[in-house]
């Protein structure tokens, strides 16, 4: 890669700042328990005590998720705007990236690396996921609040639709996270360690995934 010529082999970049990592931890600790207990509440496999415990975990997880989103929105507006810019800016590179699915099926299934269009901080698949998570997250949080706080007060029809929307959008979100985001996160192990660890990563380790970001969006600490 030509970009590497301008960097030292040992150069390290802070990819995810502390507030971003804390927010991500809150999403993990809030969304996953809420999502899994959501399935339990839907299937009702346990006794009344078990279901009661599942509901408590569901509410606590959802509370953490909601609080984290509100705090991140208030205290990190720069990151929110940066996220919006990334997920809503689509170029020909993104279309080409989507056409080959980022080269992941070829790499995972056939062990073959194919040329992939260069990306910024997040790739086109993550952009698609970002758009879905942004809107679906708002829908799930709002419908959850109605179900928790205002169920006896809203008309029956609205309560029924709220319940169904919460269920379907929540399940889609859980499938997208557990079926796509988490496996691919684990597959890109160094990125995984970066997000769950101290947020740093060697530039040589992300030069393939984020060449445009390295080229245009980072600067040396003075």
């Amino acid at each position, binding site marked *: 890669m030509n970009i590497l010529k301008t960097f030292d082999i040992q150069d390290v*970049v802070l990819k995810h700042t502390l507030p971003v990592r804390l927010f991500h931890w809150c999403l993990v600790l809030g969304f996953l328990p809420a999502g899994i207990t959501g399935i339990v509440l839907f299937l009702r496999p346990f006794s009344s005590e078990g279901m009661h415990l599942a509901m408590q975990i569901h509410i606590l997880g959802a509370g953490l998720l909601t609080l984290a989103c509100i705090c991140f929105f*208030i205290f990190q507006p720069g990151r929110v705007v940066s996220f919006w810019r990334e997920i809503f800016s689509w170029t020909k590179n993104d279309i080409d990236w989507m056409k080959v699915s980022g080269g992941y099926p070829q790499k995972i299934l056939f062990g073959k690396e194919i040329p992939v269009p260069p990306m910024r901080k997040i790739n086109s698949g993550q952009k698609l996921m970002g758009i879905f998570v942004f809107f679906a997250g708002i829908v799930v949080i709002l419908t959850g609040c109605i179900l928790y706080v205002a169920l006896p007060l809203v008309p029956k029809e609205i309560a029924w639709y709220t319940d169904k929307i919460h269920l379907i959008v929540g399940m889609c979100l859980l499938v997208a996270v557990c079926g796509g985001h988490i496996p691919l996160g684990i597959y890109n192990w160094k990125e995984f360690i970066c997000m769950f660890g101290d947020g740093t990563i060697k530039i040589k380790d992300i030069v393939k995934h984020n060449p445009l970001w390295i080229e245009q969006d980072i600067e040396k600490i003075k």
Partner: protein
Amino acid sequence: MKYNYVEKAVQITRREFIGLAGVAAAALWTGAYAVTDLVEDRNKYIKMRMAGLYKDDEKQAVRQSHNNKSLMQMYGKLAGKPMSPLAEELFHTQYVNRMIS
């Protein structure tokens, strides 16, 4: 791990600031409106319920269960006395603690 590169600071444009402030204001306004609406609705139902209970109470000739002849007759004929084994079996339900500690 020590790092020597960071992401450039994000400069928020006027358009983005208005967008962000708009979303925050809409969320806060909707939330505040919903809360006042809920409180008003809740108070309305509580007041209606209270008025209904007082009205029912005023209409009743017998206002205590131990003075209720038909209830005492039922206990006499069917369940022996209040808290008898049969009364427990027929009328008492299981308690499940639903408090969030």
